[in-house]
């Protein structure tokens, strides 16, 4: 890892460089403590195992249940990471320092989204094989499309989730409020992702799941842009 640059020479702020610096800071904290990652992955694996025990394989084929299980777990384990995203800043009033720096609000938000995206993807790289293993899924030939679905859904989840984490951190209820606000917003992510995954796992041509992929893509485009636009409003001036 390269040493942090400590030069005092002034450089014009660059949006993506700033965002990346924020993301790196958050990921570094997470990498050193591993608290949320551990919680999220253990939760994900536990949830898969519990789902497996409530399921009667003679009544419902694995193929019909697994996509739903996968995406429900994906959503809830994502929430565990999102809660931490701004809680981290509020402790010791670190957020005030971040806002006082010359980094733009949009870059702070983008950085947080990148950090949460990496977090969610890391959890997913463990949860996905766990689901495939316990439900005996033939992921083999279609892994490329599943990765694409995961990327699209994770981006939408991170953008919307990060924005609501910022809102929730300003309220009395904090983490209690986050699922209540975000879950309706995850509907156009979880349903299309689960449907598209089901199409792929059944070995049907991807054209049949194309409508679902388009919904995911449209959701990402609209909400990533909208969340960046409205994020400055969540900050006390």
């Amino acid at each position, binding site marked *: 890892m390269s040493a942090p640059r400590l030069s005092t020479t002034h450089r014009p702020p660059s949006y993506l460089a700033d965002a990346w610096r924020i993301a790196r800071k958050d990921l570094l904290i997470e990498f050193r403590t591993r608290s949320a990652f551990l919680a999220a992955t253990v939760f994900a694996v536990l949830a898969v195992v519990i789902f497996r025990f409530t399921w009667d394989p003679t009544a419902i084929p694995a193929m019909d249940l697994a996509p739903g299980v996968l995406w429900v777990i994906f959503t809830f384990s994502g929430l565990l990471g999102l809660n931490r995203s701004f809680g981290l800043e509020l402790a010791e009033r670190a957020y005030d320092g971040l806002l006082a720096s010359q980094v733009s609000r949009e870059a702070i938000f983008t950085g947080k989204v990148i950090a949460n995206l990496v977090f969610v993807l890391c959890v997913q790289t463990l949860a996905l094989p766990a689901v495939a293993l316990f439900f005996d899924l033939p992921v083999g030939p279609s892994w490329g499309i599943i990765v694409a679905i995961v990327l699209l859904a994770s981006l939408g989840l991170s953008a919307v989730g990060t924005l609501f984490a910022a809102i929730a951190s300003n309220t009395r209820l904090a983490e209690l409020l986050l699922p*209540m606000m975000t879950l309706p*917003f995850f*509907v*156009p992510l979880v*349903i299309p992702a689960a449907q598209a995954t089901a199409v792929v796992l059944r070995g049907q041509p991807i054209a049949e799941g194309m409508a679902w992929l388009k919904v995911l893509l*449209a959701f990402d485009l609209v909400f990533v842009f*909208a969340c960046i636009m409205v994020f400055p409003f969540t900050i006390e001036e």
Partner: protein
Amino acid sequence: MSSVSSAAPRSATVPEPKGFDAFLAIAMVAVIAACARALFFTPIDAMLGAAQKIFYVHVPAAIIGLYFACGLLFISSIMYLWIKDERLDRLAESSAEVGLVFMGIVLVTGPVWARSSWGTWWVWEARITSTLFLWLLVVGYLVLRSGVESIEVRARLSAVMGTLAALLVPFIHLTVKLFRGMHPEPVVLAPEKPKMPPEMLMSFGLSMAAFLLLFFALLRLRFRWATLRDARTAMEAA
């Protein structure tokens, strides 16, 4: 900020709380009259039977709850982010709460009708599912409001959620519509579809007008209540 400075002089002219609201009384009478007409003076549908009478409550409540109330909520949220007028925030709050009641009516009367017509209380169908998600979204919005003490912060954060919710609704509708539906197609504003007989259309028009009156009466009452509450909060803070 302009909204803060304008709050002080306006608090002198805060509307006094009244025990009797004439507008609401008229609206209640109109709703009772419209229901009476629908029940006793409108022919029973030959195909759907007496259960079709629910239509005169269900559809006006749906149109008002889903389009009027949510539309007002979304528009006033977006406008608040733009011009930061606290009255817009109170309008958003009032329409969310009154809209929740109307959507609640839709979600209760719907299954009652579905039980007698489809033989099942609940169906995961596009319109029904969208309404349920919208109802839950508004509940989340109101819980967010209850979680913030400061008037200004509450207005700002809930306006952000209201704005995003406006973008979300088409996505929810699109998503659940990709599942096939069995809800009856709209028969009110669809010129090429089979039409209702004129007596039924008249009853429907009257109940629509009555429920619209009720909606605005409740909205006005709720808005006044919010104004009083905010004025009291501002006085206590001063």
